[in-house]
């Protein structure tokens, strides 16, 4: 791989990292937060309230892993880095879920006059679907991709 190709892979890696970052750091947490908001949860902006140090660390890790996976595309390190991306994404989503709705349960209560209402909704099946259909393939498929296409 010459310098021009490396530069090209780095640029694609940065863009891929941005996509992962948007998906795991903002879009999925925003969805979780939105579900909480709909049910009247007080935490409205968990998706955008990471401590600065965490946000910078997450962005750095996503970008670094993504660029490394692109640059080392022909090596066995590439699927390892891609799998790590998926696993770190899961950690981020679980962190936000734990912040917005501990235990994956949305709870809210209302009062109208003397009457009291409460609601409890378990959204963990959605997390399970996320793990089964996005995280698990994200961990396993880079290796299949590598062994099928690269070798």
């Amino acid at each position, binding site marked *: 791989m010459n310098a021009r190709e490396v530069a090209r892979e780095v640029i694609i890696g940065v863009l891929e990292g941005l996509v992962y970052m948007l998906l795991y750091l903002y879009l999925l947490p925003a969805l979780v937060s939105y579900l909480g908001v709909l049910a009247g949860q007080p935490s409205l902006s968990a998706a955008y309230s990471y401590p600065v140090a965490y946000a910078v660390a997450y962005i750095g890790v996503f970008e670094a892993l993504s660029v490394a996976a692109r640059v080392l595309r022909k090596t066995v390190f590439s699927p390892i880095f891609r799998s790590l991306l998926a696993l770190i994404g899961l950690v981020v989503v679980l962190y936000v879920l734990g912040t917005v709705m501990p235990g994956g349960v949305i709870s809210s209560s209302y009062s109208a006059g003397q009457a009291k209402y409460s*609601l409890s909704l378990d959204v963990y099946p959605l997390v399970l679907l996320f793990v089964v259909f996005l995280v698990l393939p994200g961990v396993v498929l880079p290796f299949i991709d590598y062994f099928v296409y690269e070798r």
Partner: protein
Amino acid sequence: MRIGTIVFLGGVLIIAIFALPLIYFLYYIAANPYQAIVANMSSTPGPPCGETEYALKLTYSDPVPMGDVQLTATFTEANGSSFVFRASANVLTKGRSLTLCVPSGVLASARAVSFNLTGSIGFVYPLSISSWQPVGG
């Protein structure tokens, strides 16, 4: 297109399909927090219940179906004793209702009633709705 891309897009699609009923239900609940279950008590005893029983009809008004529904109504008297009535249904869709037959004696002496409805929204997400309200003077 690589297998990874296809599986990723498929995964996003599946999650979106399963998330839709949840979002729709929560959106409806947020817009109408007291209207998912509407309780209606008949004004006179009689059908569909017995001659001395009032029909307590709980109508489900959420557009997302609920599966494996269990309803418990507890009438509490001033002295603390309570009467529990239960009803269940495999599926509740918008407009369908559960009916409990409450003896007029229980209704006359009750000071509070609480409802607990459990089920699974869209047959996937476990849900529990509870309410408590005073009855009579």
